[in-house]
């Protein structure tokens, strides 16, 4: 018997998030409150199904055997699904607290990209597998949960900081180029993943982005880079349109700056707890609480970065745009810590050769 009912709920959740993003985008363009509300409903619905997915997967793992059952955060698929769940959780809290739906279009794509990647990438295994002995510990629960809640908070700060840069743009200067490039890259990544999903339906050692940038056919690669250039160019050309759309919402730069800071003020203690629980666990498993393993080191790099952010805010001139840029770069460190280390570097945390 194959226990994959949880995957069905995963797919439904993913589609709900897709609808949410579309609604939020429409809301941004047309500013109809009803559409914004539908976006929120789609998020709540998707989150409910996503929670069911996690719960069913947990239950199904125990159905497979007492020695196989585990909290669903043990491999790339499970952890990324959980990561998207924490991002949506944080988002719902922030949307409610600030009564503001314009954040939606900047945060839901991050969760959606995560769901799309693990949903479509051919060699990200979705089956439930037993925990390897090294992961059989209660520290797994608290270490993963605190770390991902921290990452989620930083993801929100990323979205809000992007909004800050958009709203405070006055001319097409370096900062304008920076945020239009950020948005362009996210759109290009989404398109590339979509192509992967459409054309790479068979498994067999295929890698992420192989339908576009990493294709064996040179013509496809050239077209991919041309497409990327086009998207970046369009983003730069029409960025002012995004700014005009956003300006219609009640997003003062002070409020965006404050939310960008407060989410980091929530994420930083969580990340600290994540690193500390990781160290305590490492000491119970290997006898060393800090081994300069790439994953450990990158989590420290992320931590140092946000510590710099927090200290910089006390220095005049480092609020506002500079803080927003630091927050965006910090999130890149978060993404590398979580994904880059596992997929590109080797070490104790490696998920193996996937992607």
């Amino acid at each position: 018997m194959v226990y994959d009912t949880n995957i069905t709920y995963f797919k439904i959740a993913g589609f709900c998030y897709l609808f949410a993003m579309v609604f939020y985008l429409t809301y941004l363009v047309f500013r109809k409150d009803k559409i914004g509300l539908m976006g929120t409903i789609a998020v709540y619905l998707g989150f409910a199904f996503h929670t069911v997915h996690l719960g069913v997967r947990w239950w199904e793992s125990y159905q497979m055997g007492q020695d196989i059952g585990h909290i669903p955060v043990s491999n790339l698929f499970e952890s990324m699904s959980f990561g998207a769940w924490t991002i949506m959780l944080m988002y719902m809290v922030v949307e409610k607290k600030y009564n503001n739906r314009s954040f939606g279009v900047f945060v839901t794509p991050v969760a959606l990209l995560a769901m799309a990647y693990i949903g479509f990438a051919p060699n990200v295994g979705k089956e439930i597998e037993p925990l390897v002995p090294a992961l059989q510990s209660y520290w797994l629960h608290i270490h993963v949960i605190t770390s991902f809640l921290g990452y989620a908070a930083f993801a929100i700060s990323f979205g809000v900081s992007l909004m800050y840069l958009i709203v405070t743009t006055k001319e097409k200067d370096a900062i304008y180029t920076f945020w239009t490039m950020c948005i362009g890259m996210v759109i290009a990544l989404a398109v590339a993943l979509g192509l992967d999903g459409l054309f790479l339906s068979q498994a067999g050692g295929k890698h992420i982005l192989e339908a576009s940038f990493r294709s064996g056919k040179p013509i496809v690669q050239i077209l991919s880079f041309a497409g990327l250039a086009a998207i970046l160019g369009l983003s730069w050309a029409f960025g002012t349109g995004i700014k005009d759309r956003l300006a219609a919402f009640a997003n003062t730069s002070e409020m965006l700056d404050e939310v960008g800071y407060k989410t980091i003020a929530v994420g930083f203690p969580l990340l600290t707890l994540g690193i500390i629980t990781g160290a305590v666990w490492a000491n119970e498993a290997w006898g060393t609480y800090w081994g300069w393993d790439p994953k450990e080191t990158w989590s420290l790099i992320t931590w140092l970065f946000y510590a710099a952010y927090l200290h910089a805010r006390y220095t005049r001139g480092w609020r506002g745009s500079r803080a927003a840029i630091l927050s965006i770069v910090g999130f890149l460190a978060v993404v590398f810590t979580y994904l880059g280390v596992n997929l590109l570097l080797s070490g104790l945390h490696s998920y193996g050769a996937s992607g």
Partner: protein
Amino acid sequence: MEEKQAQQQEGLPARFLSGVWKFFTSLKLTVFTLISLAMVSIIGTVIDQTDPAKNMQMLMDLFGPQDAPAALDWLVRLGLTDMYHSWWFVGLLTMLCANITVCSLERFPGVWKKVTTVQGPLTGDTLKTLSQKKEFKVSGAASFKAKATEAMKAAGFTPREVESGGAVHLMAENGKFSRLGVYITHTSVIVIFIGAMIGSFWGYKGYVQIVENGSVDQVSLVSKPLLKKYPGDVVPLSFRVRCDKFELATHQQARFRGMPSDYLSTLTVLDGDKEVLTKMIQVNDPLQYKGIRFYQSSYGQAPGMALMTVRAASQKGGFSVHDYPMKKGDRVKLEGSDYEMEVMDMAADVALGPNNQLVAQSDQFKGRGAVILQFFDKGGNPADQVVISSVIPDSQPQNIPFKFTITGYRGPYYTGLQVSYDPGVWVVWLGCALMVCGILVAFFMFHKRVWVKIEETGGGALVTVAGGANKNRHAFEREFAKLLERLQA
């Protein structure tokens, strides 16, 4: 002129020291150091810190096999292959410590003064600094005072009453000690560093391999302590650790059959020939004795120490069966007879070769093992020697009334344990706990103060309500507005 020059010269060392002090009080230095540490740490994740072969491979991919060795040499010289212990990395960490210490020493006295100063009545100067204030008139001073006291209590304050300058002051403050949160956090960083240093100076990491039924009383060092020398890089233990059994648990479900589910070593500690502790350890559950910890790390087959179980079934009068687990070279008494038998050789898996001799195949026992038994009679003289194997079932000893079969075979395992001794680890945990407390206090608690000043005027009173918070002003604004509502109701 000379006097002035002399004065300036005397001032120089003092001026230099105060300049250095000032350098370390800079917050810009903090941001610079934190970001520098972050950036250089990236290098250590790209250049392998443990395996030179990986670096050589990477350099060969980048520069080709000709230039790779020279490039690797440069990396080693710059300290990049062990960068987290290099002088410049440790230097950056030291700079951060100095920065933290000096900043805290500089700012702490002022904060301590604020924390220990009792809140005084509302003066004109204080009023100027407060962001929230409101003035209004009320009809009765005494009744209002009672109402105000209740309202402040309901808002979570404990008001004190003082008479000053002809007016009654009700004042309260909460979360004064939250101002210390930052200093707790900074101290925690220093504590963690101290713990880490204690560990590097006197702690060590090592490795032991213990074969089943064997024991060790010393540890091979993998990572040496900086301030203690162990001759031969081996740490002698004041006790023995014996491995009673190693078990490789595997999953039984069809899809995962054969996948390891657990590595379990049953270890016994012998201190002065007495068994003091027995524990079955697994990954994430180590053995600890006298501050030294043993972690399940790896395992393997110990060559030449297989255990074969030979079953001897008596052929005369009554069916009696006895199992003998034996290693190569073991000599045991054959129960129910005067004979002894010795294992001359054994193999896990054999087949009949082309010339009708037995050929060893794999070391996996599938029921086709073979053992050469040499029998000795009552006087100790060699008697029969026979090969026992299911492949040649008719091969049995001639004069000894027993039938022999092989019922089991277990290649003994050795268990690989990582050994760790870290006298600084509890200091590090203390630092971590302090850090979590400090961060929570610094971020989520703040210092709030409120005053209600009641000045009696003819037929009533003039009331001034004022307050302020050192952080999270928006939240305090809402709290203050609520308090005002209660007071003006």
